[in-house]
């Protein structure tokens, strides 16, 4: 492997290692997988093959960043923003005839009969 490529591979490994610290399934699990994946490809010599692996590594970096962002966004949305769907269902429940006629419901027949 030429020196610039070697540098890129090492930089990719460091970046993935840094991203993996917050991995939901555990930093240790991620590190094992990461090391395994890099060790499996350590004897490659064809530059185009190496480049394909580096591109895959960059893609995985972007995927992990996107996953972290989506997790955070969803958590924030759930905590701070009223779910419009829940509100609609609540309003519908309150507007049914068996909810509104509650004082005389003892004499009303159920919908099935």
């Amino acid at each position, binding site marked *: 492997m030429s020196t610039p490529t070697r540098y890129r591979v090492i930089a990719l490994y*460091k970046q993935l290692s840094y*991203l993996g610290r917050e991995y939901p399934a555990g930093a240790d699990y991620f590190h094992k997988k990461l090391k395994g994946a890099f060790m499996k490809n350590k004897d490659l010599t064809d530059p185009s093959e190496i480049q394909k692996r580096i591109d895959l590594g960059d893609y995985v970096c972007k995927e992990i*960043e996107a996953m972290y*962002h989506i997790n*955070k*966004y969803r*958590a*924030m949305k759930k905590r701070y923003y009223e779910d419009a769907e829940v509100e609609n269902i609540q309003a519908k*429940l309150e507007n049914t005839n068996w909810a509104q006629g509650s004082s005389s*419901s003892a004499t009303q027949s159920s919908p099935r009969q």
Partner: protein
Amino acid sequence: MSNLRILVATKRVVDYAVKIRVNAAGSAVETANVKHSMNPFDEIGTEQAIQIKEALAKSKTGTAEVVVVSCGPAKAQETLRTALAMGADRAIHVDSEEDLQPLAVAKLLKAVVEKEKPDMVILGKQAIDDDSNQTGQMLAGLLNWPQATFASKVELGDKSMTVTREVDGGVETIKTPLPAILTTDLRLNVPRYASLPNIMKAKKKPLAKFAAADLGVDIKPRLQTLKIAEPPKRQGGKLVESVDDLVDKLKNEAKVL
């Protein structure tokens, strides 16, 4: 050619994914040995400032300097380093070991604003640890500046900004002159993740430290926490046999009908 200085206020809070616990004394949330990170709304604020800077550079219509500030103990510098790694130019740490409530932070930020003279101050709408949603508004009041809160879109004009705000029941678009205060809403942007090379570069960026006491501001807390308790444990669900049974339970036990 406009040369903007944007001040971004950030706060180091317990990480959003941590399951918080009340401490043994029942006086506060347990924060020792717990993962901390930058408040998510402040990340959005930092990202917005950097995007403004990049847009100005790209269109060659001006330059912007992004200054991040954080008020708190020594560890607040970790948050500042994160912001520098995202692309901020320099950082200010207002050092204080005291419990800083929103009014105190607003007063400290006012002192920083008077020193730095920014064209806009960006804050997160609220911190996820105390959920006060006050600091931006109080700062605007103390400085007598206009404020655009819960921003989901910002466009800069000539000495003005047009902001789309998220309000109950919809959105509202307002235009304010600069200087002004902006607080960020979740939908404003997607914060970037700092790459390792940028984190290394951030170590060389300037970080100035001021002691809160030196700024000549009264930071005594005005609010006292009387009690903290975990919410009541969720009751188990019940199975119902028929529609009549469900209606009966909703009316008599849950009392929602």
